[in-house]
Structure formats: C-alpha cells, structure tokens
C-alpha cells in the first residue's frame, strides 16, 4: 500500500506581522490529564468528539499566516507553491505554507481522524473525487469544509456546472475541481492508417465492428478495460455510461443502474470484451496495460484528458508522435459527445485561524483565468471556466507527443457537452458491488440486465449499514 507521507516546507522571510500569529499548541500537564481522563471515560468521549469543528485560535485576518496543505499529487505541490504570489496579491496575507503529501484515500481518513482529535487538520485539502464521496456521509463535509458558494457567485455563468456537482452537497460547494476531465479516444494514428481505419469514427457500434474483425484476424484491441481493480472496473464502465447519457446515481444519491442506458452500455462492453474488441487488463496504469501498449496490441483507449500524462506518455514514451487524440465516437442510441472521469477538488477547512487565508488561496489559485491557463500548461488539467477554452494561447499550443496536434481545439469542441456526474456517500459500496457483477457479466455467468439488477439489490442491502 502507498501510505508514505512526505512533507515539504515553504517559508518566506517577512517583516513582523501586523497581527499576532497564534503559537502552535503546546502540551501542558492539564491537557495531558484532561486527555487521559477523556480516554478513561471512553464512552462519553464519542459525544465529546462532536466538538471537532471548534475554533482552535483567533482568526488570522492579515499578515503572516502559517498554512498546511494536504494533497496526494506531486503536481499540486508545485502548483500551489507557485500560486502563493497570486494569492498574496489578492489579499493581505503572507503565506508560510507547509505541504504534506498523502495517498488519496488516506488523506480523507487522516483528515477525519484529526478532526475527531480536534487538532492537526490541514487548512487546505485536495480531495480526489472518489475519496471525497466518503465526506458526503452524514455532515462530514458540512462540518469540515467551507461553503464556497459565495466565492463562486461572480463566476457562476462561466463555471462549468458539471464540475461543481461532484463536490457539492445540499447546495453547498465544498471544493473547487481542478479539472474538467473529458474523455477522448487516444489512438495509434500510424496503426489506424495501416489498418485502414477511418479517423472519423462515427459510432461506437461501427468501431466495435471493426474491432471485432481486428481481434479475430490480428489479435489487436481497440480499447482496454480494467478487471482486477474494483474502482478501475467501475470507472471504465462509468465513462461509457456517462457518455451514453446514464449515471451511477441520481441527484439524490440513489442508484440508477436499472435504466436502458446502463443496460445498453453494459451489453456493449460485454460484447466488446467477449469479442476481443476490448482487451482486459489488471488496471489502466500498471504493467499489463503498459505491455499491451508497448507491444502494439492495444491500439486505442477511451480515457479522460489527464490519461495522457498518467497513462499514455509514462508507459510508452518511445511512441512519441504515433499517438493522436480524437473526440469519441457516439452511441447510436444517443447520449453525449464525451464522458468524464476523475477530478480533484480543493477545499478550505472551517473554523480554523487560517480559514480565510485558505479560502483565498483556493479561490485565487483556482478561479483566476490566468491560473487555469497555467494549470493546463503545467499539469494538463483542463479549465473549469468556459471562457478559458477560447484562450488563444491554449488554442495554439501544439503537443509534440501527439504529433504536434492542437489538443485544445478538440477539448473546446466537446466541452459544452460534458455530462453531470452525481456522487453518493455510498460510492465506495457501488464500486465494490458493481465491479463484481460487471465481471460476472463479462464471464457470461449472467446477462447484463441481470448483473445490473443484482448489483442494485446488493447495493441496497449494503447501503443500509
């Protein structure tokens, strides 16, 4: 498991602050005794834990502010470090930032544990979309995170609403997404040309027909599907389902698997896997997919925009110039031009001395158009402001790995048809339950419709707890 944490500190030398900076809490004998008594009391302690959100010091309104940021991604460490001057420009804060890197799932676990302990929570937290779903249970998100609704008000017409939904609860926006991770078709242009595959793919059904023949004659696949990683299995299904016009949950967090869209999508994928049009791999990042890409057995994948940086380029750097990005084929039955997958929202922790400074850092770092341009150039994450898609600098960027393609033209073309994604506190239950039944359908043990019905039943059974 990847539980290692690393810590980097970014301090700035500054004149004496204009407001007193609270000292870090010191353990006193009385605190120790009180802590011991708390442990000894045991049972009542559970009730006392409700006080986790209490302010631990006077709010800092200006001057030097020590600020802790937690993230799971190295890219954000550099991004936020470089965003400090921007945040300082818009405010009277002088940031003294410490950044801690933790695994995406562990970050939420530790965040809640520290909140229960009443100390040691970060001021800013980067919440991977799958891990964030855990914070939707009960009042966790509302107790811990600042509602950013007011901050986004001036941008409400410009912000892509589909990226607010996953990090919202009961109308409150708990975090700002880093990305609009639209799905595209990464494909080997050289091989497609050799095999005479028209780059205007038309429909999925058309591409699947070509793929079936290729699998038979040349043992080549035009897609990949993760089968050993429950989260990956469901993500592969979800990407297609979203494009087809379905989703795993509705706006109320209720499962929506028993729909024609879901059944049709799963039937399409089952047929794809059984015919060999889609290759099965352990996961979409490890040795199996790498080998498939390197050997030229997997010629295309349907994955989000960030997969270029996390999947294609790291696995097959030697194939630079051979890959291209294209808008996805569409389903004959309807739906969208793209799906979406992934995302990471950054939120500010409530009721802390540095809450205002944290809020300022997140808002200025994420909603300034120049920062959105920078984020795409540095990290490859697509803007969440619609207007930035018309930025001439981004539109003119050519990507050497993809043969000098102007990727942003493709993203701009499809971004207006990005589907909403709805989260549920029970997303992790859905991942486990659905992955098992999807695999049963792949093995031919049950029909796609039966697999989805069984998954819904099991989900409801487990979600009761």
């Amino acid at each position, binding site marked *: *498991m990847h539980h290692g944490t690393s810590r980097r500190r970014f301090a700035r030398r500054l004149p004496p602050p204009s407001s007193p900076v609270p000292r870090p809490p010191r353990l006193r004998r009385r605190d120790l005794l009180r802590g011991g008594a708390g*442990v*000894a009391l*045991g*049972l009542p*302690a*559970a*009730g006392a*834990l*409700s006080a*986790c959100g209490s302010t631990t010091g006077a709010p800092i309104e200006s001057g030097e502010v020590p600020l802790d940021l937690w993230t799971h991604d190295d890219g954000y460490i550099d991004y936020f470090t470089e965003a400090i001057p921007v945040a300082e420009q818009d405010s009277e804060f002088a940031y003294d930032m410490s950044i801690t890197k933790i695994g995406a*799932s562990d970050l939420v*676990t530790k965040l*809640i544990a520290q*909140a*229960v302990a009443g100390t040691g929570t970060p001021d800013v937290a980067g919440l991977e979309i799958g891990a964030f779903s*855990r914070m939707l*249970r*009960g*009042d*966790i998100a509302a*107790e*811990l995170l600042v509602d950013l609704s007011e901050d986004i008000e001036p941008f409400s017409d410009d912000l892509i609403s589909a990226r607010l939904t996953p990090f919202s609860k009961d109308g409150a926006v708990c975090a700002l997404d880093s990305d609009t991770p639209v799905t595209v078709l990464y494909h080997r242009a050289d091989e497609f040309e050799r095999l005479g595959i028209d780059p205007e793919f038309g429909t999925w059904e058309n591409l699947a027909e070509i793929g079936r023949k290729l699998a038979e004659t040349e043992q080549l696949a035009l897609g990949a599907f993760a*089968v*050993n*990683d*429950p989260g990956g299995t469901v993500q592969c299904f979800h990407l297609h389902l979203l494009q087809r016009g379905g989703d795993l949950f509705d706006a109320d967090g209720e499962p929506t698997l028993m729909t024609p869209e879901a059944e049709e999508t799963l039937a399409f994928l089952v047929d794809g896997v059984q015919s060999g049009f889609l290759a099965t*791999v*352990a996961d979409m990042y490890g*040795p*199996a997919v790498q*080998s498939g890409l390197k050997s030229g057995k997997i010629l295309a994948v349907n994955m989000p925009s960030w997969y270029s940086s996390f999947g294609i380029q790291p696995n097959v750097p030697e194939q630079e110039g051979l890959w291209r990005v294209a808008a996805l084929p569409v389903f004959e039955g309807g739906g969208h031009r793209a799906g979406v997958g992934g995302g990471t929202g950054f939120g500010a922790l409530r009721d802390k001395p540095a809450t205002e400074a944290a809020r300022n850092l997140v808002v200025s770092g994420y909603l300034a158009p120049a920062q959105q341009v920078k984020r795409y150039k540095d990290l490859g994450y697509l803007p969440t402001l619609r207007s930035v898609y018309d930025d001439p600098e981004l539109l003119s960027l050519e990507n050497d790995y993809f043969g000098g393609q102007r990727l942003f033209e493709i993203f701009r073309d499809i971004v207006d048809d990005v589907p909403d994604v709805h989260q549920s*506190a*029970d997303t*992790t*239950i859905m991942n*486990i*339950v659905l*992955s*098992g*039944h999807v*695999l*049963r359908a792949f093995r031919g043990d049950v029909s796609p419709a039966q697999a989805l019905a069984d998954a819904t039943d*099991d989900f409801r*059974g*487990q979600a*009761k*707890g």
Partner: protein
Amino acid sequence: MTTSDLTTAQRSPEQSARSASAPGDARGSGSSGTRRSSLRGGLAPYAFIAPFYVLYVLFMIIPILAALYLSLTEWVGLGTPSFIGLRNYLNLASDSSFATALGNSLVYTLVAVLVVVPCALLVAQALNTRGLRFRDMFRVAFFVPMVLSPIVIALIYSLIFDRDYGLLNSSLNALFGLPHINWLGDPTLAKGAIGFVLLWRTVGYLTIFFLAALQNVPSEQYEAAALDGAGRIRTFFAVTVPGIKPISAFVIVTSFIGAAQLFDEPYLLTRGGPGESTISIAMFIYRAAFERQQFGYAAAAGVVLFVIVFAVSQGLNRLLGIGRDS
C-alpha cells in the same frame, strides 16, 4: 550454633518477620505500627501489578465497551453517534457482503487449521530428523517469510500470480503449454492463491513451535516403541502426537485466531476481489469503518467477530484440553 549466631541474611523470612514485630522492639510503636506495616505489605503486590491492569482497563476493557456501545449507534466518524439499538446487527444478518466475508473467513481458518498446521508439523518432523545437515539454515529459510513485510510478500506474489506477465503462468505455459490462468481474477482461484500465501507465510513460524516440542519428546519412548516393533507411522501417532499435544493445541488455537482475523493477504493481493469473493471479516470491518464511514456498523461486525472467535477458541480449548494436566 544458636539462633543468635545467625546473621540477618541467614534468617528465614518467618524469623525476620517475628523479630521485626516482637513486643518491645525499638522500631515498633504498638498496634498502629503493626497495622501500617501490614497495610504496606498488603498493598505492595497490588501496586506492582497495578500498571498492567490500569493499561489493560484503559486499552482493552474500555475500548471493548466503547465498541459495544458504538455497535448500537449510527456514527460517521464526526458528530454525536445516534442510538439505533440493534439495527446494525439486524442489517448484518441480511447483508450478503457480511455473509460472504464470514464464509471466506471460514475457508481461511480451515486452511490455517487443516492445511497449514499439518504442513508445519511435517516440516518440523523433517527438520527433526537425526543427522540432518544444515538444520539451522533450513530453519532460518522456513522462518524468513514470517519476518518479511506483508507488503513485500503481496508485491512478490502479485507479480508471480499476474495473469499476463506472472512467473507462474509463464512457467506453466513454457513447460506444459497451458493457457494463461487468472489466478487473482477468478473467485475460486483467488481464494486458493490467498490460502497458498497464508501457508507460505506462516508455516515456518509454526514449524519452530513444533520443532521445539518434538525435541522434548523423550527418546526413551521412541526406543520403547522400536523395541515393541512399532513402524514409523505407528510411532508417530502413538509417541510423537501425544508427546506434542500441548504445543499442538496451542498452535491450532492461535492459528485459528490469526486466520479468523486475516487482513493483510486479501487486502494486499486482491483487495477482497474479484467483486467480494475473497473479502475477510477483518477487511469487511476495515472497509465499513475507513472506506464507508460506517463506524457503528463496523463495530457491530467487530463484536460479531469477537463473539465467534471467543466461542470457537473456548470450544477448542476444552476439546484440546489446553491448560489441563494430562
């Protein structure tokens, strides 16, 4: 030699005590001094054993009571738990996932008790063979998996069992032309793979116990059996097995408890998958608490696991006569 010739060090404790409390002793001050002294002597043992019991109560009894209470509540990890009575237990009873976890844990305990323990005994018997060279080297080799990090073991075995690029499939394919088998992706095979890793990891550790027990079986009993014309198998069951019964009982009970709480292997190798086909109860509890924020539900599952392990362990204790003189 008279009593007065004895030095203080040579006196018996009783004599020292008598002389210390003798009437007219300059140190004694009547009955109150006697009471203080006896009070001091009476409390001293309790003071010495108190640290253990304080820690025991703080870190064992109170958490168990807290878990019992939590199991009757709904709690997401923050805020005040809300009391829901026995609803968590009722939900567990109808939760197919928990039933799967129970079934899988039963399989793992059966593997531990019926496969791992006999294998450990066989290995110990082999290592106990008279005249065996490099005995210590073999012993270390068998023990090494126990001191390896489970993460390392999982990494190695995930590479060995990988369907497309694993050592096992490559070997089977090269030697026998077999197609690639999905060891960790097939529900039945994945359980078998976890059972094998469990065997590989723990057999060496249990072997050490059996080896110590075998070396303590009196050689005269083997000689007597040989004189009586007993063969190897007869000797094994008539001399060896009764001779190592106390250790065997201990090994069986601890293996059962360890396997009932198995977490590392399924979590690291398969994450409980494919689907939920290899999930154990310990993993179910972890998942409910730390991936789903269902702390009350997890506590209820923990209580059920505790009751099962406690009851079966007690049954095994009675069956195997642990702690009783033969």
